[in-house]
Protein backbone atom coordinates (compact mmCIF):
# COMPACT_ATOMS: atom_id res chain seq x y z
CA UNK A 1 0.00 0.00 0.00
CA UNK A 2 1.42 3.36 -1.04
CA UNK A 3 1.32 5.87 1.84
CA UNK A 4 -0.49 9.13 1.29
CA UNK A 5 1.51 12.30 0.67
CA UNK A 6 2.77 14.16 3.70
CA UNK A 7 3.37 17.89 4.05
CA UNK A 8 6.82 19.13 3.10
CA UNK A 9 8.97 21.33 5.35
CA UNK A 10 7.83 24.58 3.75
CA UNK A 11 4.20 23.67 4.18
CA UNK A 12 4.62 22.70 7.82
CA UNK A 13 6.35 26.06 8.38
CA UNK A 14 3.45 27.78 6.65
CA UNK A 15 0.96 26.07 8.98
CA UNK A 16 3.08 26.97 12.01
CA UNK A 17 3.09 30.63 11.03
CA UNK A 18 -0.71 30.67 11.03
CA UNK A 19 -0.50 30.41 14.83
CA UNK A 20 1.27 33.74 15.19
CA UNK A 21 -1.01 36.48 16.46
CA UNK A 22 -0.62 40.24 16.09
CA UNK A 23 2.19 41.51 18.28
CA UNK A 24 3.39 38.06 19.32
CA UNK A 25 7.05 37.67 20.14
CA UNK A 26 8.06 34.41 18.49
CA UNK A 27 11.30 32.46 18.84
CA UNK A 28 12.07 30.11 15.98
CA UNK A 29 14.36 27.14 16.49
CA UNK A 30 17.05 25.89 14.13
CA UNK A 31 15.96 24.12 10.94
CA UNK A 32 12.31 23.79 9.91
CA UNK A 33 10.96 26.25 12.54
CA UNK A 34 13.31 28.91 11.21
CA UNK A 35 11.45 28.84 7.89
CA UNK A 36 8.28 30.12 9.55
CA UNK A 37 9.62 33.68 9.58
CA UNK A 38 8.94 33.71 5.85
CA UNK A 39 5.21 33.02 6.18
CA UNK A 40 3.66 35.54 8.55
CA UNK A 41 0.00 35.91 7.54
CA UNK A 42 -0.63 39.09 5.59
CA UNK A 43 -1.56 42.08 7.73
CA UNK A 44 -0.19 40.60 10.93
CA UNK A 45 2.79 42.11 12.71
CA UNK A 46 4.90 39.52 14.48
CA UNK A 47 8.23 40.12 16.25
CA UNK A 48 10.75 37.34 15.75
CA UNK A 49 13.24 36.64 18.50
CA UNK A 50 16.46 34.69 18.18
CA UNK A 51 18.46 33.71 21.23
CA UNK A 52 21.63 34.89 19.55
CA UNK A 53 20.38 38.34 20.54
CA UNK A 54 17.94 39.93 18.14
CA UNK A 55 14.27 40.86 18.20
CA UNK A 56 12.11 41.99 15.30
CA UNK A 57 14.11 40.78 12.31
CA UNK A 58 12.58 40.09 8.90
CA UNK A 59 12.65 37.29 6.35
CA UNK A 60 15.71 35.21 5.52
CA UNK A 61 17.98 36.51 2.81
CA UNK A 62 19.09 34.40 -0.12
CA UNK A 63 21.85 32.02 1.00
CA UNK A 64 25.29 33.60 0.71
CA UNK A 65 23.84 37.11 0.61
CA UNK A 66 22.91 39.38 3.52
CA UNK A 67 24.87 40.76 6.47
CA UNK A 68 26.89 37.98 8.05
CA UNK A 69 26.58 39.78 11.38
CA UNK A 70 22.78 39.54 11.27
CA UNK A 71 21.80 35.91 11.56
CA UNK A 72 19.15 33.79 13.23
CA UNK A 73 19.86 31.00 15.73
CA UNK A 74 20.67 28.66 12.87
CA UNK A 75 23.27 30.99 11.42
CA UNK A 76 21.15 31.98 8.44
CA UNK A 77 21.30 35.62 7.42
CA UNK A 78 18.04 37.54 7.84
CA UNK A 79 16.80 40.93 6.70
CA UNK A 80 16.90 43.89 9.01
CA UNK A 81 13.61 45.64 9.49
CA UNK A 82 12.52 48.84 11.25
CA UNK A 83 12.10 48.37 15.00
CA UNK A 84 14.68 45.61 15.25
CA UNK A 85 16.83 45.56 18.39
CA UNK A 86 20.02 43.67 19.23
CA UNK A 87 21.28 42.60 22.67
CA UNK A 88 23.65 40.21 24.35
CA UNK A 89 23.15 36.59 25.26
CA UNK A 90 22.29 37.11 28.91
CA UNK A 91 19.56 39.57 27.92
CA UNK A 92 18.24 37.19 25.23
CA UNK A 93 17.69 34.60 27.94
CA UNK A 94 16.25 37.07 30.43
CA UNK A 95 13.57 37.42 27.76
CA UNK A 96 13.20 33.66 27.38
CA UNK A 97 13.51 32.47 30.99
CA UNK A 98 11.58 35.48 32.28
CA UNK A 99 8.49 34.55 30.28
CA UNK A 100 8.58 37.47 27.88
CA UNK A 101 8.50 35.34 24.73
CA UNK A 102 4.95 34.47 23.61
CA UNK A 103 5.63 31.56 21.29
CA UNK A 104 8.56 29.23 20.82
CA UNK A 105 8.71 26.87 17.85
CA UNK A 106 11.11 23.94 17.96
CA UNK A 107 11.74 20.61 16.37
CA UNK A 108 11.64 17.38 18.37
CA UNK A 109 12.58 13.72 18.38
CA UNK A 110 9.67 12.75 20.62
CA UNK A 111 6.70 14.32 22.36
CA UNK A 112 4.71 12.60 25.08
CA UNK A 113 1.00 12.61 25.76
CA UNK A 114 1.58 14.97 28.71
CA UNK A 115 3.61 17.36 26.59
CA UNK A 116 7.05 16.22 27.70
CA UNK A 117 9.65 17.09 25.11
CA UNK A 118 12.73 15.14 23.98
CA UNK A 119 14.80 16.99 21.44
CA UNK A 120 18.38 17.33 22.58
CA UNK A 121 19.83 13.85 22.35
CA UNK A 122 19.43 10.63 20.40
CA UNK A 123 20.33 8.02 23.04
CA UNK A 124 22.64 6.11 20.70
CA UNK A 125 24.78 9.22 20.31
CA UNK A 126 25.25 9.66 24.09
CA UNK A 127 26.20 13.31 23.60
CA UNK A 128 23.50 15.93 23.52
CA UNK A 129 23.11 19.37 22.04
CA UNK A 130 21.15 21.25 24.67
CA UNK A 131 21.73 24.71 23.24
CA UNK A 132 18.84 26.97 24.19
CA UNK A 133 16.20 24.25 23.99
CA UNK A 134 15.72 23.73 27.73
CA UNK A 135 15.43 27.45 28.36
CA UNK A 136 12.95 27.93 25.53
CA UNK A 137 10.88 24.89 26.47
CA UNK A 138 10.51 26.04 30.09
CA UNK A 139 10.34 29.76 29.45
CA UNK A 140 8.09 30.49 26.50
CA UNK A 141 4.39 31.08 27.16
CA UNK A 142 3.40 28.71 24.35
CA UNK A 143 5.58 25.98 22.92
CA UNK A 144 4.78 24.69 19.43
CA UNK A 145 6.59 21.61 18.16
CA UNK A 146 7.04 21.19 14.40
CA UNK A 147 8.26 17.74 13.37
CA UNK A 148 7.71 14.66 11.26
CA UNK A 149 5.05 12.46 12.78
CA UNK A 150 7.12 9.28 12.57
CA UNK A 151 10.75 8.22 12.41
CA UNK A 152 12.35 7.40 9.04
CA UNK A 153 11.36 3.76 9.49
CA UNK A 154 7.78 4.62 10.34
CA UNK A 155 7.83 4.39 14.17
CA UNK A 156 5.69 6.87 16.15
CA UNK A 157 7.37 9.88 17.68
CA UNK A 158 4.21 10.96 19.50
CA UNK A 159 4.39 8.65 22.50
CA UNK A 160 2.79 7.81 25.84
CA UNK A 161 6.17 8.37 27.47
CA UNK A 162 9.32 9.72 25.86
CA UNK A 163 12.06 7.09 25.65
CA UNK A 164 14.73 9.65 24.76
CA UNK A 165 16.29 11.98 27.36
CA UNK A 166 13.94 14.76 28.38
CA UNK A 167 14.47 18.41 27.43
CA UNK A 168 11.64 19.69 29.64
CA UNK A 169 8.49 18.29 31.23
CA UNK A 170 4.88 19.31 30.45
CA UNK A 171 5.85 22.04 28.08
CA UNK A 172 4.41 21.29 24.62
CA UNK A 173 1.11 23.01 23.87
CA UNK A 174 0.69 22.39 20.16
CA UNK A 175 2.14 19.84 17.82
CA UNK A 176 2.29 20.45 14.07
CA UNK A 177 3.51 17.47 12.08
CA UNK A 178 3.62 16.43 8.46
CA UNK A 179 0.22 14.75 8.85
CA UNK A 180 -1.63 16.41 11.74
CA UNK A 181 -2.18 19.28 14.15
CA UNK A 182 -2.58 18.12 17.75
CA UNK A 183 -3.29 20.12 20.88
CA UNK A 184 -1.92 18.95 24.21
CA UNK A 185 -4.61 19.45 26.86
CA UNK A 186 -5.16 18.34 30.44
CA UNK A 187 -7.59 15.70 29.17
CA UNK A 188 -5.16 14.35 26.62
CA UNK A 189 -4.06 14.92 23.05
CA UNK A 190 -6.73 16.43 20.85
CA UNK A 191 -6.54 15.95 17.09
CA UNK A 192 -7.55 19.23 15.49
CA UNK A 193 -6.46 18.95 11.86
CA UNK A 194 -5.25 16.30 9.44
CA UNK A 195 -3.22 16.56 6.23
CA UNK A 196 -5.14 16.51 2.91
CA UNK A 197 -6.64 13.04 2.22
CA UNK A 198 -5.58 11.70 5.65
CA UNK A 199 -8.25 10.42 8.06
CA UNK A 200 -8.13 10.67 11.86
CA UNK A 201 -7.89 6.86 11.95
CA UNK A 202 -4.78 6.89 9.79
CA UNK A 203 -3.16 9.51 12.01
CA UNK A 204 -4.08 7.48 15.10
CA UNK A 205 -2.40 4.41 13.65
CA UNK A 206 0.92 6.30 13.60
CA UNK A 207 0.44 7.77 17.09
CA UNK A 208 1.01 5.90 20.35
CA UNK A 209 -1.35 7.64 22.79
CA UNK A 210 -5.06 7.60 22.08
CA UNK A 211 -6.08 10.81 20.36
CA UNK A 212 -9.26 12.63 21.23
CA UNK A 213 -10.71 13.58 17.85
CA UNK A 214 -12.02 17.11 18.04
CA UNK A 215 -15.68 17.27 16.85
CA UNK A 216 -14.52 20.03 14.55
CA UNK A 217 -11.48 18.11 13.25
CA UNK A 218 -10.80 19.15 9.65
CA UNK A 219 -8.24 19.28 6.90
CA UNK A 220 -5.20 21.47 7.65
CA UNK A 221 -5.89 25.01 6.59
CA UNK A 222 -2.94 26.97 5.39
CA UNK A 223 -4.37 30.43 4.76
Amino acid at each position, binding site marked *: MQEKERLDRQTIALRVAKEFQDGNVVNLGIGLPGLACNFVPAGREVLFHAEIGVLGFGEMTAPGEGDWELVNAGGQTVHEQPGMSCFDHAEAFVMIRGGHVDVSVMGAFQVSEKGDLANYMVPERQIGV*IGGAMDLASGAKKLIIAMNHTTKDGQPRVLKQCTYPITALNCVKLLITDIAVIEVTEKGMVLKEVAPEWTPEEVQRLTEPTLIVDPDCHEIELM
Partner: protein
Amino acid sequence: MPVNKIVDSFDEAVADIEDGATIMIGGFGIVAGAPSLLLEALARKGSKDLTMVSNVTGFGKMVWKQLGFKFAEDPDILVRNGQIKKAIATAPVSTIYENNFERLLRAGKVELETVSQGTLAERIRAAKAGLGGVYVSVGVGTVVEEGKETKIIDGKKYILELPLKADFALIKAHKGDRWGNLVYRRTSRTFNAVMAGAATVTIAEVEEIVELGELDADAIHTPGIYVDRVVVRPLVIEEEEVEINAEAKESYEKFKERKGN
Protein backbone atom coordinates in the same frame (compact mmCIF):
# COMPACT_ATOMS: atom_id res chain seq x y z
CA MET B 1 49.92 58.80 32.12
CA PRO B 2 47.01 58.24 29.77
CA VAL B 3 45.38 54.86 30.18
CA ASN B 4 46.18 52.73 27.16
CA LYS B 5 44.84 49.19 26.86
CA ILE B 6 45.78 48.79 23.20
CA VAL B 7 48.39 46.13 22.56
CA ASP B 8 50.32 45.88 19.32
CA SER B 9 49.88 42.28 18.24
CA PHE B 10 47.72 39.24 18.70
CA ASP B 11 50.72 37.23 19.88
CA GLU B 12 51.45 39.81 22.57
CA ALA B 13 47.78 39.85 23.58
CA VAL B 14 47.77 36.14 24.46
CA ALA B 15 51.40 35.83 25.58
CA ASP B 16 50.54 35.09 29.24
CA ILE B 17 47.88 32.41 28.65
CA GLU B 18 49.71 29.48 30.18
CA ASP B 19 49.03 25.74 30.21
CA GLY B 20 46.05 24.80 32.37
CA ALA B 21 44.28 28.17 32.08
CA THR B 22 40.51 28.48 31.93
CA ILE B 23 39.50 30.57 28.95
CA MET B 24 36.19 31.94 27.77
CA ILE B 25 35.63 32.37 24.06
CA GLY B 26 32.98 34.80 22.88
CA GLY B 27 30.57 34.46 20.01
CA PHE B 28 27.71 32.09 19.49
CA GLY B 29 29.20 29.56 17.14
CA ILE B 30 28.58 31.87 14.24
CA VAL B 31 31.83 33.03 12.79
CA ALA B 32 31.16 36.76 12.80
CA GLY B 33 31.20 36.88 16.59
CA ALA B 34 34.30 34.77 17.18
CA PRO B 35 37.67 36.24 18.22
CA SER B 36 39.30 34.45 15.30
CA LEU B 37 42.72 36.07 15.29
CA LEU B 38 43.12 35.72 19.06
CA LEU B 39 42.33 32.02 18.63
CA GLU B 40 44.93 31.73 15.87
CA ALA B 41 47.49 33.42 18.10
CA LEU B 42 46.69 31.08 20.98
CA ALA B 43 47.04 28.14 18.59
CA ARG B 44 50.49 29.45 17.61
CA LYS B 45 51.45 29.82 21.26
CA GLY B 46 50.31 26.24 21.82
CA SER B 47 49.22 26.43 25.48
CA LYS B 48 47.90 23.03 26.54
CA ASP B 49 45.35 21.55 28.96
CA LEU B 50 43.02 24.49 28.59
CA THR B 51 39.50 24.52 29.99
CA MET B 52 37.35 26.23 27.41
CA VAL B 53 34.03 27.95 28.14
CA SER B 54 32.10 28.70 24.97
CA ASN B 55 28.72 28.18 23.36
CA VAL B 56 30.05 25.65 20.86
CA THR B 57 33.29 23.70 20.65
CA GLY B 58 33.63 24.76 17.06
CA PHE B 59 32.27 23.69 13.73
CA GLY B 60 35.33 24.20 11.63
CA LYS B 61 35.56 25.37 8.05
CA MET B 62 33.05 22.97 6.53
CA VAL B 63 29.98 24.36 8.21
CA TRP B 64 30.89 28.00 7.73
CA LYS B 65 31.33 27.41 4.05
CA GLN B 66 28.01 25.66 3.80
CA LEU B 67 26.34 28.60 5.47
CA GLY B 68 27.92 30.79 2.82
CA PHE B 69 30.18 32.76 5.16
CA LYS B 70 33.61 34.12 4.64
CA PHE B 71 35.89 31.92 6.62
CA ALA B 72 37.45 32.69 9.97
CA GLU B 73 38.53 30.54 12.92
CA ASP B 74 36.22 29.45 15.72
CA PRO B 75 37.02 27.46 18.93
CA ASP B 76 37.57 24.36 16.78
CA ILE B 77 41.13 25.52 16.05
CA LEU B 78 42.11 24.86 19.69
CA VAL B 79 40.30 21.52 19.67
CA ARG B 80 41.92 20.15 16.52
CA ASN B 81 45.24 21.49 17.78
CA GLY B 82 44.92 19.29 20.90
CA GLN B 83 45.04 22.22 23.33
CA ILE B 84 41.78 21.53 25.16
CA LYS B 85 41.47 19.41 28.31
CA LYS B 86 37.85 20.20 29.08
CA ALA B 87 34.98 22.03 27.40
CA ILE B 88 32.01 23.70 29.07
CA ALA B 89 29.54 24.28 26.26
CA THR B 90 25.87 24.19 25.27
CA ALA B 91 26.34 22.64 21.82
CA PRO B 92 29.52 20.56 22.06
CA VAL B 93 28.84 18.45 19.00
CA SER B 94 27.15 18.97 15.67
CA THR B 95 23.77 17.45 14.90
CA ILE B 96 24.76 16.81 11.29
CA TYR B 97 28.32 15.47 11.30
CA GLU B 98 31.09 14.40 13.69
CA ASN B 99 33.20 17.41 14.60
CA ASN B 100 36.73 17.33 15.99
CA PHE B 101 35.55 17.67 19.56
CA GLU B 102 33.25 14.67 19.24
CA ARG B 103 36.11 12.56 17.88
CA LEU B 104 38.34 13.49 20.84
CA LEU B 105 35.51 13.00 23.32
CA ARG B 106 34.76 9.51 22.00
CA ALA B 107 38.47 8.74 22.22
CA GLY B 108 38.45 9.82 25.89
CA LYS B 109 40.89 12.63 25.22
CA VAL B 110 38.74 15.55 26.43
CA GLU B 111 36.15 16.12 29.16
CA LEU B 112 32.80 17.76 28.69
CA GLU B 113 30.30 19.65 30.85
CA THR B 114 27.15 20.41 28.91
CA VAL B 115 25.18 23.46 30.09
CA SER B 116 21.90 24.98 29.01
CA GLN B 117 22.51 28.16 27.04
CA GLY B 118 20.63 30.61 29.23
CA THR B 119 22.20 29.08 32.31
CA LEU B 120 25.67 29.39 30.78
CA ALA B 121 25.05 33.11 30.21
CA GLU B 122 23.67 33.56 33.73
CA ARG B 123 26.56 31.68 35.38
CA ILE B 124 29.08 33.83 33.54
CA ARG B 125 27.19 36.96 34.52
CA ALA B 126 27.09 35.77 38.15
CA ALA B 127 30.89 35.60 38.18
CA LYS B 128 31.14 39.07 36.70
CA ALA B 129 28.54 40.40 39.15
CA GLY B 130 30.05 38.88 42.31
CA LEU B 131 27.02 36.70 43.04
CA GLY B 132 27.44 33.44 44.95
CA GLY B 133 24.94 31.62 42.75
CA VAL B 134 21.52 31.82 41.16
CA TYR B 135 18.41 29.63 41.28
CA VAL B 136 17.23 28.58 37.82
CA SER B 137 14.24 26.36 37.05
CA VAL B 138 15.50 25.48 33.59
CA GLY B 139 16.58 21.85 33.48
CA VAL B 140 14.47 20.60 36.39
CA GLY B 141 13.65 16.94 35.76
CA THR B 142 16.44 16.57 33.23
CA VAL B 143 20.09 15.51 33.15
CA VAL B 144 21.08 19.07 34.01
CA GLU B 145 19.67 18.63 37.52
CA GLU B 146 21.90 15.66 38.37
CA GLY B 147 24.32 16.24 41.23
CA LYS B 148 23.11 19.77 41.90
CA GLU B 149 21.39 21.30 44.91
CA THR B 150 17.75 22.11 44.42
CA LYS B 151 15.34 24.24 46.38
CA ILE B 152 11.63 24.90 46.36
CA ILE B 153 10.98 28.64 46.25
CA ASP B 154 7.43 29.94 46.21
CA GLY B 155 6.18 26.45 45.34
CA LYS B 156 8.45 25.94 42.33
CA LYS B 157 11.58 23.83 42.07
CA TYR B 158 14.87 25.50 41.21
CA ILE B 159 18.45 24.31 40.65
CA LEU B 160 21.35 26.15 42.27
CA GLU B 161 23.74 27.19 39.52
CA LEU B 162 27.18 28.46 40.50
CA PRO B 163 29.22 31.29 39.01
CA LEU B 164 31.60 30.45 36.20
CA LYS B 165 34.79 32.49 36.14
CA ALA B 166 37.79 32.28 33.86
CA ASP B 167 41.41 33.37 33.81
CA PHE B 168 41.06 34.89 30.36
CA ALA B 169 38.12 35.94 28.22
CA LEU B 170 38.79 36.21 24.49
CA ILE B 171 36.11 38.31 22.85
CA LYS B 172 35.40 40.03 19.56
CA ALA B 173 33.91 43.50 19.13
CA HIS B 174 33.28 45.93 16.30
CA LYS B 175 35.04 49.02 17.66
CA GLY B 176 37.09 49.79 20.73
CA ASP B 177 39.04 52.68 22.24
CA ARG B 178 42.09 52.98 24.50
CA TRP B 179 39.98 52.80 27.68
CA GLY B 180 38.62 49.45 26.52
CA ASN B 181 35.13 50.72 25.71
CA LEU B 182 33.54 48.43 23.13
CA VAL B 183 30.62 48.33 20.73
CA TYR B 184 29.36 45.30 18.84
CA ARG B 185 27.42 44.98 15.61
CA ARG B 186 24.04 43.24 15.34
CA THR B 187 24.07 39.54 16.31
CA SER B 188 27.79 39.52 17.05
CA ARG B 189 27.23 40.89 20.57
CA THR B 190 26.03 37.53 21.98
CA PHE B 191 28.42 35.93 24.52
CA ASN B 192 31.12 38.52 23.80
CA ALA B 193 29.45 41.19 25.92
CA VAL B 194 28.52 38.66 28.62
CA MET B 195 32.07 37.34 29.02
CA ALA B 196 33.73 40.77 29.12
CA GLY B 197 34.69 41.20 32.78
CA ALA B 198 33.95 37.62 33.84
CA ALA B 199 37.63 36.68 33.64
CA THR B 200 40.70 37.97 35.44
CA VAL B 201 41.92 39.30 32.08
CA THR B 202 39.59 40.23 29.23
CA ILE B 203 41.14 40.57 25.78
CA ALA B 204 39.10 42.13 22.98
CA GLU B 205 39.78 41.69 19.27
CA VAL B 206 38.25 44.64 17.40
CA GLU B 207 37.79 45.56 13.77
CA GLU B 208 38.61 49.18 14.39
CA ILE B 209 40.23 51.29 17.09
CA VAL B 210 38.65 54.71 17.50
CA GLU B 211 39.67 57.84 19.38
CA LEU B 212 38.40 58.29 22.91
CA GLY B 213 35.07 60.09 22.66
CA GLU B 214 34.09 58.74 19.25
CA LEU B 215 31.80 56.17 20.85
CA ASP B 216 28.67 57.82 22.24
CA ALA B 217 28.43 57.35 26.03
CA ASP B 218 24.84 56.12 25.67
CA ALA B 219 25.70 53.57 22.98
CA ILE B 220 28.75 51.85 24.49
CA HIS B 221 27.88 48.20 25.09
CA THR B 222 30.87 47.18 27.21
CA PRO B 223 32.30 49.95 29.39
CA GLY B 224 36.10 49.86 29.54
CA ILE B 225 36.07 48.77 33.19
CA TYR B 226 35.58 45.18 31.99
CA VAL B 227 38.34 45.15 29.38
CA ASP B 228 42.09 44.78 29.91
CA ARG B 229 43.53 44.57 26.41
CA VAL B 230 42.37 45.68 22.97
CA VAL B 231 43.95 44.46 19.76
CA VAL B 232 42.93 45.43 16.24
CA ARG B 233 42.39 43.14 13.26
CA PRO B 234 44.16 43.80 10.02
CA LEU B 235 41.70 45.42 7.66
CA VAL B 236 40.68 42.37 5.67
CA ILE B 237 40.50 38.78 6.78
CA GLU B 238 41.54 36.45 4.00
CA GLU B 239 38.49 35.29 2.11
CA GLU B 240 38.17 31.77 0.89
CA GLU B 241 36.01 30.28 -1.82
CA VAL B 242 32.50 29.74 -0.60
CA GLU B 243 30.19 26.98 -1.69
CA ILE B 244 26.51 27.47 -1.02
CA ASN B 245 24.79 24.49 0.51
CA ALA B 246 22.55 22.91 -2.11
CA GLU B 247 19.66 22.17 0.27
CA ALA B 248 19.64 25.75 1.57
CA LYS B 249 19.53 27.03 -2.01
CA GLU B 250 16.65 24.77 -2.94
CA SER B 251 14.65 25.59 0.16
CA TYR B 252 15.08 29.28 -0.54
CA GLU B 253 14.02 28.91 -4.17
CA LYS B 254 10.90 27.04 -3.11
CA PHE B 255 10.05 29.78 -0.63
CA LYS B 256 10.49 32.47 -3.27
CA GLU B 257 8.23 30.57 -5.68
CA ARG B 258 5.53 30.22 -3.07
CA LYS B 259 5.74 33.90 -2.17
CA GLY B 260 5.47 34.69 -5.88
CA ASN B 261 2.06 33.03 -6.05
